[in-house]
């Protein structure tokens, strides 16, 4: 994977060629996502919407004891997996349904930023498309693997899209959790949209 260099040239933040693609969502939704992400009032509304949608569902689905697995080995020996709910997926994969999608996508560790479109309509993807690490920091983790800060990156990482119904998402959640556990991963990092 090509490493990034900090630059002031806003169009070339992603080094190594192509930037990720913006899956079109239409100008009205684009303007809405921009407002939600970039203005105080929009952000307040976005937070309110998140709470309104999520809190009643979490009350039902996240009740009871909180699971707890302490990290079982030093970080420098640990295998790390990355999971993003920012709508990231492979260019060769079917894009997420923009309104709601309960499926997930597997993203291999050696993917290039230019092979990662974003299919999501609830946030302004402009900055994430300039630097995919904002929602999917795989390049940063590759650097930390090379620096031996972490033991290694898992072979497969995971992307989710926009989904309002947690209940409908549960089969995918369980499948991803099973896959991660079976892959011998030690630490999962979760990054939101």
């Amino acid at each position, binding site marked *: 994977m090509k490493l*990034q*260099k*900090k*630059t*002031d040239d*806003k169009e070339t*933040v992603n080094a190594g060629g192509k930037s990720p693609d913006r899956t079109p969502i239409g100008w009205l939704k684009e303007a809405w996502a921009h407002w*939600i*992400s*970039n203005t105080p009032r929009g*952000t307040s509304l*976005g*937070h309110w919407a*998140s*709470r309104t949608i*999520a*809190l009643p569902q*979490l*009350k039902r*689905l*996240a009740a009871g*004891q*909180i*699971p*707890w*697995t*302490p*990290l*079982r080995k030093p*970080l*420098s020996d640990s295998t790390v*997996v990355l999971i993003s*709910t*920012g709508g990231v997926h492979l260019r060769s994969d079917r894009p997420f349904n923009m309104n709601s999608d309960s499926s997930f996508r597997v993203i291999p560790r050696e993917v290039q930023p230019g092979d990662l479109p974003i299919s999501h309509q609830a*946030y*302004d*993807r402009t*900055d*994430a498309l*300039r*630097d995919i*690490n*904002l*929602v999917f*920091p795989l390049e*940063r983790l590759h650097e*930390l693997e090379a620096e031996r800060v972490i033991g290694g990156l898992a072979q497969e990482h995971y992307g*989710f899209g926009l989904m309002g119904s947690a209940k409908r*998402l549960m089969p995918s*959640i369980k499948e*991803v*959790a099973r896959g*991660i*556990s079976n892959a011998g991963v*030690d*630490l*999962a990092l*979760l990054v*939101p*949209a």
Partner: protein
Amino acid sequence: MGLLAREIEARGVTTVGLALVKEVAVAANAPRFLYLHWPFGHALGEPGNIAQQRTVLHDMFSMAVNAPRPGLVVDLPYRWRRETYAPVADWSMPSDSLLSALSLKPSALERVAI
């Protein structure tokens, strides 16, 4: 995302999540969350700011190793676009931000009702 963390952790894998909406993170009853008061689509910060992105990852690793109990949603102190980020000096040590949130500022911790 909290539900995903719960399922993964229940299968024996440590999890750390970033959160941009604090109330949702608290309600998720997930093992470990770090809350950032940053805009949607910017969980790791600003495009091209590698030091910022590495700082957040250092905080996540520090949380993975040092969180004292399940269900904590820790406030990270960074202001949006008004911080400078020094390179991480020692990745084997927990981040100052996390240590200070865990030990010096109990108010920064949200104890989740079980």
